[in-house]
């Protein structure tokens, strides 16, 4: 089996999520765990790693931001169309090992996508986890993702949505204006029997980790999902290496103490 060979799948749904993101539902029926990703190909343009934002045996959902060549080309996908994929790849969040714990989920921008996979998983195994606290930060009300799901999450979990600014006074789903770190700072978090999952821009993750540590979280209670340039997704091309660990096979979810200062390594 050629490990670089993508396979064709069908797009079951195309949903516009925000002005520059969309969510594809794909008939990929392979087992996956929250935090894993797939390599999506657009022949002639290239491949891009996209994290899975669902938890199902009968499909995968990919929330994609139009930011590079491949993702801009994918934005032209249509329901019923074909998509080339290999994977799923990587190690996701250690959901099994963290059963019985409180979970704090901190996401920034399109970093909320892999956490949505975690939330779906939690919904399917709700009794196995204690308090769930979600901190989701966006730059503006327009960029808020998974608006449909937000109402459900608000009912079931402790949910804080922040937006950096709301210049036009748009409807913003009860989001507070300010950085996500301000919401974390103001919240009462019990580090005992807890773990925190983070995914977002490096600066936001670094600041959030500092706050979590101030609140008594140890580095081995913090799990981050790293974003890196990658080509092979198999652990050989080396572009995604962080201190000798491959984001594609050893990650993309790492326990924070395993990779240290991930912002420049």
């Amino acid at each position: 089996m050629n490990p670089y060979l993508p396979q064709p799948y069908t797009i079951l749904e195309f949903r516009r999520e925000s002005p520059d993101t969309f969510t594809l539902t794909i008939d990929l029926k392979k087992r996956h765990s929250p935090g894993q990703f797939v390599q999506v190909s657009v022949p002639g343009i290239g491949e891009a790693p996209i994290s899975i934002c669902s938890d199902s045996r009968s499909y995968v959902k990919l929330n994609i931001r139009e930011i590079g060549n491949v993702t801009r080309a994918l934005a032209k996908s249509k329901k019923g169309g074909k998509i080339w994929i290999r994977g799923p790849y990587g190690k996701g969040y250690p959901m099994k090992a963290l059963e019985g714990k409180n979970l704090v989920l901190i996401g920034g921008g399109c970093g909320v996508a892999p956490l949505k996979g975690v939330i779906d998983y939690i919904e399917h195994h709700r009794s196995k986890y204690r308090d769930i606290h979600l901190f989701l930060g966006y730059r503006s009300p327009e960029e808020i993702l998974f608006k449909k799901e937000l109402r459900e999450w608000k009912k079931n979990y402790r949910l804080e949505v922040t937006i950096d600014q709301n210049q036009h006074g748009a409807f913003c789903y009860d989001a507070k204006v300010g950085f996500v770190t301000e919401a974390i700072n103001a919240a009462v978090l019990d580090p005992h029997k807890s773990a925190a999952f983070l995914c977002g821009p490096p600066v936001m993750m670094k600041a959030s980790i500092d706050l979590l540590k101030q609140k008594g979280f140890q580095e081995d209670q913090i799990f981050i999902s790293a974003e890196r340039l990658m080509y092979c997704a198999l652990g050989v091309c080396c572009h995604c290496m962080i201190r000798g660990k491959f984001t594609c096979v050893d990650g993309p979810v790492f326990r924070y103490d395993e990779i240290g200062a991930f912002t420049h390594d």
Partner: protein
Amino acid sequence: MVLYRLEKKRLGELIGRLMLDAEVIAPVKKDVVRFLPIAHPEEIHLERNAFFPAKEYFFPQHQTLFQFDGKSFAPVIPKPKKRVFFGLRRCDLTAIRHQDLAFEEVKDPYYETMRKSALLIGYHCPKAPSPYCFCGSLPQIEFFDLMFFDQQTGFLVETGSEKGEQIVREHPELFALTDLPKPDTKIPGADRLHVENIAPLYDHPDWKKGADQCLSCGACTALCPTCYCFEIHDEVSTANPDAGKRSRSWSSCQLPGFTRVAGDHVFRKERDHRFKHRIFHQLEYFKEKHGVPLCVGCGRCIEACPTRIDFVKLLNEMKT
């Protein structure tokens, strides 16, 4: 381990016979010494090590992985070509083994096909061929089909595999069994790296000293016999934008684009972070995964550097 003796004057005869059913690739002196397919045994140049390693024969600088036409992806696996590599120094042989470790892990069919059909004949350096050599400071492995030790009038030939034994068996009139002892495999003048464990040096300020002279040209990684990083890109024809090929090419961790993600964020933006990453991958990270350092001590990255950044000297001078 069995040792044979081959008269120096009969080397040409052996190579000529090997050329009958295989492409023989050996160091040849052109603009610089390179591994090239030879047409005559006299082209073989053993005075200096090749400026370029042999890695391009297993892991080409550019290689097509697939052809696509809008409906399917068709793998383009290279046809195995019977090749004999002659004159590989110990560092280059070890480098091939280390690249094997990296590509074996993912069962890379492109690399595997090129490697499988190659016979490796080594040439033991009588002394360090370059002032930058430091293979003696790193673990040495015995990895060859045949190894040639240069003696006054002849070669002592050690067999290292069944494939190597077979060559000897096929040419009994050229190889004479000998009971001479195996020569010392230590290469004089090749043990200039004095730091065994670089892990404690991670936060040392002197990485900047080396990086300050770096022009980010990527010569070090291109000439390294072990560097195996690559990128994958698609190309399409202008006539039919649905058809094209997906290829991989060497890439260099010394260039800022190596860690650039969509949205233009670069993780290893500073030269010292990139320089340190290269040396740590070579001496530390690969060892954590595979038990051996990736670097083989050939010194090419230093010799080829336009500003001669000597990381061995730099490491030796770093005080913890």
